[in-house]
């Protein structure tokens, strides 16, 4: 089975590198991005087809991670979108629901839960695409 591709977007280098190590050990091809702008450039130029995107919310400014989520949602096939934030509030959580984000993880992230969720969501996405084709 091909390695799933995963983009990790977080301006905290330690967080990005730690998640990168964890997910690479799990067999993902990880593309790190250290800002929203970098992530949008990678997603926008189409050079990176992603199966999943994990993004922080507060980077260059508050809640800018939603721009990454929106850009990812426009890709075909749409990747699984996960938001990781330490600053969840009812307003940005409501926006995440309205954007149909696939998973909302609150920092400090339970890595085992995040890994399990990603496996489950990728399996659901694959099954859904198979149904669409058949």
């Amino acid at each position: 089975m091909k390695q799933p591709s995963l983009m990790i977007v977080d301006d905290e280098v330690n967080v990005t590198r730690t998640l990168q190590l964890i997910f690479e050990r799990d067999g993902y091809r990880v593309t790190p991005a250290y800002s929203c702008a970098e992530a949008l450039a990678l997603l926008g130029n189409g050079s990176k087809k992603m199966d999943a995107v994990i993004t922080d919310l507060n980077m260059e400014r508050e809640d800018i991670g939603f721009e990454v989520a929106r850009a990812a949602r426009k890709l075909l096939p749409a990747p699984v979108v996960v938001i990781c934030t330490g600053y969840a509030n009812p307003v940005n959580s409501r926006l995440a629901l309205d954007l149909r984000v696939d998973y909302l993880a609150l920092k400090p992230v339970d890595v085992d839960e995040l890994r399990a969720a990603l496996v489950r969501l990728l399996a659901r996405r694959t099954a859904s695409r198979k149904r669409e084709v058949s």
Partner: protein
Amino acid sequence: MARSFLPQRVALVVHPDVATLSAYQLAFSQAGFTPIIARELPMALLAVTQHPIEVAVISSKIAEEGDGWPLAGVVRQAFAPAFVAVIARETSVHTLQAAINNGLNEIYENSVTPNVVVDSILSKLRLSAPYSPKPPRSVHPVQ
């Protein structure tokens, strides 16, 4: 009167309160849906096995607080294109996170009336792609 075998628009409503169920039943009927109502988890699960569900409105509390969330997740898994909403005591970070992580479409607070919930769902359905539930395998549309 001849029975229609054309696909129906089915709305599942799961709530422990009979008066609330009746109000939803009326609201969905008036909106052209066939409402399937359940007060308990076993009846709700039976309904999931028997009907092609387009809309589900599920109380976050069926027998005890929180047991509606996994049921809503089951409905999402079984009917990927369906509109699945949960009725919760409040819309907090915790409940919004539960809705997102269960793949649900919407949360409504207990205080919102069934008519308003149904109107809201209908307007959201109009904005999304049309849903075409397949008829049960044993039933063929009359030509």
